[in-house]
């Protein structure tokens, strides 16, 4: 474990100064108030890259807060809930959560001046950004003006450029359900009922079968851009994994639950943090 001495020292000083603060002595009426010497505070040194969590290529991992979307891409949905603290990250390698529509390579990238192709380096770098409730024409109960019901994850490299294979893996132990006849989604259901959907994998080269029980971390399929219309013709999309999570959620013990899509963003931040720490 790396110890960040600066943070620890600052915390220790703050703690000790709180403990040693004395009650002010009672003053006799008429006494002039005692003058206090202003304490000189040592400014904390600027943190360096090494002080922060990095991926295996030495890039500092960072994320834009939940619900804070790109300009012109919708109001977002601020949900910092970590629904499943113990999942493993759904991709084996480094990954970049960001918009497939409002950034380079996306149909609305121009709204943010991002008019280059999907392989633009900024698409394959941190910070991550939430895309749950990103503007769409669809009504989604968590997105008041309609929105995207999952998050989009780019793989470690831009596949059309590198030709690399990037595997999506089972985030938990569970069962592959409803694969038979599914055109572009793979569903994973855990024994306690959480349902995950993986979309745009290379559907004719999946590593799992219909009804198969899988274990956490097991390879499911390759990140791709599979997307088809009803005639079976390809619909253009970028190379990415669209990832959804359904929970039978209730705000408290008394309220009826609703089994629907929730924002996986902070659950994925948490999983990625664990993944990076494990790799240290």
């Amino acid at each position, binding site marked *: 474990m790396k110890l960040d001495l600066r943070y620890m020292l600052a915390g220790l000083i703050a703690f000790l100064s709180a403990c040693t603060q004395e009650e002010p002595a009672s003053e006799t009426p008429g006494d002039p108030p005692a003058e206090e010497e202003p304490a000189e505070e040592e400014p904390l040194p600027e943190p360096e890259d090494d002080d*922060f*969590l990095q991926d295996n290529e030495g890039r500092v991992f960072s994320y834009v807060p939940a619900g804070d979307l790109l300009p012109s891409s919708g109001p977002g949905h601020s949900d910092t809930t970590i629904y499943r*603290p113990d999942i493993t990250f759904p991709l084996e390698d480094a990954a970049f959560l960001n918009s497939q529509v409002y950034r380079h390579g996306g149909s609305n990238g121009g*709204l943010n001046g991002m008019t280059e192709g999907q392989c633009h380096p900024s698409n394959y770098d941190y910070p991550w950004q939430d895309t749950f409730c990103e503007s769409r024409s669809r009504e989604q109960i968590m997105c008041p003006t309609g929105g995207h*019901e999952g998050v989009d994850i780019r793989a470690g490299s831009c596949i059309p450029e590198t030709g690399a294979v990037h595997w999506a893996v089972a985030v938990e132990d569970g069962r592959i359900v409803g694969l038979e006849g599914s055109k572009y989604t793979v569903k994973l259901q855990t024994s306690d009922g959480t349902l995950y959907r993986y979309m745009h994998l290379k559907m004719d080269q999946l590593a799992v079968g219909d009804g198969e029980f899988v274990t956490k971390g097991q390879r499911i399929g390759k990140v791709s851009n599979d997307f088809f219309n009803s005639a079976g013709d390809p619909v253009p999309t970028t190379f990415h994994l669209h990832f959804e999570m359904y929970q*039978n959620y209730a705000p408290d013990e008394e309220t009826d639950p*609703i089994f629907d899509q929730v924002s996986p963003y902070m659950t994925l*931040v948490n999983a990625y*943090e664990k993944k990076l720490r494990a790799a240290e």
Partner: protein
Amino acid sequence: MRTLLLTCLTLSTMASAALAQTAAPPDADAVQRELEAKAIRIPASDLAAALKASDDGRSDRARLVPRKPDWEAVRAELARTSADDETRDNETGIDQRRPPVRGNRPPPPPSGLRALAAERLPRTDRGETDIVLIPLLAPAHPDVRDNLKVYGQENTYTAVSKIDNEASLSISGVCNRVIGGAPNLVSLRKRMAEGPPRLTALRARYNISRNEFGVDLSFSKFGCGYVITIECGDTDNDERCTEDQYISRLADSMILINPERAGGE
């Protein structure tokens, strides 16, 4: 006078330039820099990361609460539908509870919940249904029912059915629930729970939501949560996915595929 004119000219040129700047597309690099400026980095030290978790929005955890279904309510619902059917049979002379007949498709069943044992469903594996300990519900419509394939686990299940070449259905259910999380989410969800409509026949609260694949109808019944999904090949134009009527009609008429758990068919 000349100075005044020059000043006006200069000001109007500056205003035009400012307007032109407003209309210009945003600078991608500036947008990216803005993201970087507000991005959160996680301290490498476990301790420092833990101390900052709350500030960074990394401390709101939901928890799983195991729950059992309300089988008493299931029995009551079956009895209520059965009584309604008997009344209707007496009035119309048609047996509403007759089993499905392949090749001679009966009309869509009336609304309500009815028991139908797994062996009466041609594509359903009894081994998959026997294992399920919660009410195993599926739409009763023959288009769905006769093609149902069940993936069972003790505390959850998914059943899928191909409706035709353009659309398929799945239903998943679970009684365990996930509660808590971010305070703003809890408040939002409480407000949402106050006003959703009810499925008439099942007397269950429900929500409809659309997604990249089609449409979801989530409802709550017997202390459990269920979600019916219809995936359409043409999500934006197939009325089964664009309109609420089809999916809500399916949800209003359901079968219980493991009636033995409720005390028999």
